[in-house]
């Protein structure tokens, strides 16, 4: 079958090398409706390019309903390895009548468009290449079963795109096998469809557009996975034992994937589970269960999104003040309120940092990659138990639900850290303990677990005032001592949370700070700035709150520092402003992106160039 590759379009192209060729550097957008099964077709397309060794990324833009509304899937191929969103669409596959016109009109001149023939789009513009495909006619012969055609139809465009872009058919066939796994029949049916589309395109079209996929060797040994699955794996390898959740987009898939993994890899030799998962009645309950389990000694977690975070506010304050471990994933979506549940944003930074009434501060981790979704999940459990406090992992919809190219995950080298827990033996040795005493001067007290078989093990946990011995107290001095110790504990965390990642030339006076998924637009933007404007800018990626000393150093060592993030209120900018020395504040500048689409490099570089001009 591989032979086919030597024929047709690509072959012609190969023979007549065109100067204006755009190779491995463009983006494809498939416009369709959700629930139409296009998802698997898009994944196959993504994988095919990936298997061609070309760095690729895919972003799914879907509506907040179940079926029938416009959906766009964007695949970016980038020989430079840029995987951030790219604003411009070069190659459109228009399958959705509702949006087809607008989709075509928004294309840049010189781009190409494959479309469902009946839509008759060719007349719309003269400056782009159109490839009309009679999908319904083509699907009938390959898919006898009428009611399956709606789905299979999608695979046809995979074939068409393969042919037009020079993606080797065999790669799509491999991808199909991966996609459908055991479902042999489905795989074959879809393979036939891909092939039909491929053959049709070869037979029908003469390549007009400049876009080509050519084999590279940049994805060797890499994996493709979404952030939520990566985080789920992290939780499993962190040794999570109690998982509670309440479904919410874009968080649900984290726990649903985790459940699958746990069922497969965490059933003991006795055939019994070494974990418990509860679908709670709501997020308040989910949070309460996490804290109860943490109190009793489990490694517990939940995952939610903005609305759930708000509902957990009271419980998080309890966790902070009674000092209970627990890991809270917030897969951020666009707020406020219900907002745009299927769009991405970094909008819960401030609310998580200070969640709950009274004086509270919380540890936050900011994964930027699927690798970090895995590694930070592991770290989060250690931090939660070492610091006996709720720890938040702030991912987002873009990271959590989209597929990302990544290096295989590193097996955790550090043993599990359970923190300062006293057992029977310790108590025999010590004779007793004071739950809230700062024995080691780091603000972190010692605890015992319920069921510890020693008469001095028990203590009383309460959200009301307490002294070092955990006895009820309304004494002003007890209160102040305890609150000061909590502040000290938080300060200690600065040294233990993940350190920032720096790219520092040492010469540049300008710096950029970003975090989470904003990172990917940033690396690309930095290249644009140096290439196009020869602005060499240093870059620091914050990975946790409270801020590590390096963050303060970085700002000290630069004249101007741009904080780039995806929300309206410059939330990280504000956290930094609060944390850094007063005389450093003047250095901070803010670059914001908050329309719900993943941030792109051009928006960043443009914003910085214009601000630099000032």
């Amino acid at each position: 079958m591989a032979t086919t590759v030597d024929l047709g379009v690509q072959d012609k192209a190969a023979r007549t090398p065109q100067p204006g060729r755009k190779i491995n550097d463009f983006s494809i957008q498939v416009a369709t409706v959700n629930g139409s099964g296009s998802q698997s077709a898009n994944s196959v397309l993504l994988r095919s390019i990936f298997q061609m060794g070309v760095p690729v990324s895919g972003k799914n833009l879907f509506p907040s309903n179940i079926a029938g509304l416009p959906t766009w899937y964007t695949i970016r191929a980038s020989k430079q390895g840029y995987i951030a969103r790219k604003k411009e669409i070069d190659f459109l596959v228009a399958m959705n009548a509702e949006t087809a016109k607008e989709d075509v009109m928004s294309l840049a001149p010189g781009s190409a468009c494959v479309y469902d023939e009946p839509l008759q789009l060719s007349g719309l513009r003269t400056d782009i290449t159109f490839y009309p495909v009679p999908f319904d006619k083509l699907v009938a012969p390959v898919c006898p079963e009428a009611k399956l055609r709606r789905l299979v139809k999608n695979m046809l465009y995979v074939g068409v795109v393969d042919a037009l872009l020079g993606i080797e058919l065999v790669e799509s066939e491999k991808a199909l096998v991966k996609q459908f796994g055991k479902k042999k029949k489905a795989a074959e049916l879809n393979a036939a469809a891909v092939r039909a589309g491929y053959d049709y395109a070869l037979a029908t079209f003469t390549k007009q557009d400049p876009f080509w996929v050519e084999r590279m060797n940049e994805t060797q040994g890499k994996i493709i996975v979404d952030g939520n699955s990566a985080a789920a794996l992290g939780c499993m390898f962190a040794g999570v034992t109690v998982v509670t959740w309440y479904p919410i987009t874009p968080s649900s898939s984290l726990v649903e994937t985790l459940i699958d993994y746990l069922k497969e890899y965490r059933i003991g030799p006795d055939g019994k589970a070494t974990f418990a998962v509860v679908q709670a009645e709501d997020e308040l309950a989910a949070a309460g269960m996490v804290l109860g389990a943490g109190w009793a000694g489990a490694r517990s977690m939940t995952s939610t999104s903005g609305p759930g975070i708000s509902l957990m506010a009271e419980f998080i304050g309890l966790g902070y003040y009674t000092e209970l471990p627990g890991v809270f994933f917030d897969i951020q979506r666009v707020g406020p309120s219900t907002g745009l549940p299927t769009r991405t944003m970094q909008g819960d930074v401030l609310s998580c940092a200070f969640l709950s009434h009274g004086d509270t501060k919380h540890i936050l981790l900011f994964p930027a990659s699927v690798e970090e979704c895995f590694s930070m999940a592991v770290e989060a459990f250690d931090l939660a138990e070492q610091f006996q406090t709720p720890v938040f992992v702030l991912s987002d919809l873009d990271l959590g639900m989209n597929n990302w190219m990544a290096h295989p995950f590193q097996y955790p080298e550090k043993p599990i850290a359970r923190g300062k827990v006293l057992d029977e033996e310790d108590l025999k040795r010590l004779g007793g303990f004071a739950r809230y005493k700062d024995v080691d001067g780091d603000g972190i007290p010692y605890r015992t677990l319920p069921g510890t078989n020693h008469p001095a093990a028990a203590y009383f946990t309460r959200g009301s005032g307490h002294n070092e011995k955990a006895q009820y107290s309304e004494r002003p001095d007890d209160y102040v001592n305890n609150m000061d110790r909590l502040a000290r504990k938080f300060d200690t965390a600065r040294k233990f949370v993940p350190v920032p990642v720096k790219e520092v030339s040492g010469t540049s006076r300008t710096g950029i700070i970003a975090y989470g998924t904003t990172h990917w637009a940033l690396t690309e933007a930095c290249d644009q700035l140096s290439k196009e404007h020869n602005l060499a800018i240093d870059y620091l990626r914050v990975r946790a709150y409270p801020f590590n000393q390096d963050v303060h150093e970085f700002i000290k060592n630069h004249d101007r520092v741009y904080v780039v993030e995806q929300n309206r209120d410059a939330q990280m900018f504000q956290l930094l402003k609060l944390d850094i020395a007063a005389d450093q504040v003047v250095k901070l500048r803010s670059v914001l992106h908050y329309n719900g689409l993943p941030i792109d490099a051009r928006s960043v570089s443009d914003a910085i160039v214009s601000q630099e001009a000032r």
Partner: protein
Amino acid sequence: MSATSTPTPAPAPKTNHIGLTVLDYRGGKTTLCAGCGHNAITERLIDAMYEMGVQPENIAKLSGIGCSSKTPAYFVNRAHGFNSVHGRMPSVATGVALANQKLMLIGVSGDGDTASIGIGQFIHLMRRNLPIIYIIEDNGVYGLTKGQFSATADLGSKLKTGVINDLPPIDTCALAIQLGATFVARSFSGDKKQLLNLLKAAIAHRGTVMIDVISPCVTFNDHEGSTKSYKYSKDHDEPVQEIGFVPSFESIDVDYDPGTTAAVRMHDGSQLRLRKLDRDYDATNKVGALTLLAEAHEKGEMLTGVFYVNATAPSFVEQLNLTEQSLARMTEAQVRPSRQVLDGIMEELR
């Protein structure tokens, strides 16, 4: 006060079958009002734990917020306690039960803590049949916030201020039965014998025990016109059966008349004995129980006793197919899959 400052030393203190004295089940000094019904319940809990010979360290005490929710600090100091937030104890308890299935959970709540702010979590805990002894110290008011009506206040009940309650009371027992709790009863803090036997049977049960204990608030709801006062409760308390209990560690062949008494074999082998009074009531019949309570509700009767018991239904923890050892005690080897597992998964994602 003397309770803490000068514990009266007994010559040769009586001990229970695990060799502990009743003092080993004592808690801190109560800060509740003198005469508060809650204090009586605390005493019964201490007696029950002592007489059943529960290992104090194996108990976990949980509560929400309220005068009632303070009581876990007043019994069994040798057990870990957790006074959480208002109305949300059920979720905390659920987490504890999952983390360590070996613990015996005692949840103490109030009528406000349970029936108002907490009714949602209450319902879902009952539905899960979580292994816990859930006690509502029910005085029909919010004691700690100075006497507003709670959702269990009866129609027409009057506050000191003269305000009349015009919303129907929530019958937590009917709810518990309907939703799946497997041991549901009502008692009165003034009825020592009934409450003590109920609590002992509760300790012998596996699954959700829900006991609504009418517990008068002497400061805000013990006056004329209140339907949760000592007087009103004494006058209207109508037991549906006489409750006897024979623990597993005593010989249960102390015989009884099957004609007048129904015996229920509890999870731990103890026996709950329900002797007929005026009515012939079958506490193992769910529909019957719900009908009984619905009728009582219409008539405005205050029934006490065991309304429903199912000693064999699986508890939530059993349904989860958990490994023997409690999750809180798992070793790294048990909870962190091997390097090979990770490599395998990575391979699949290639």
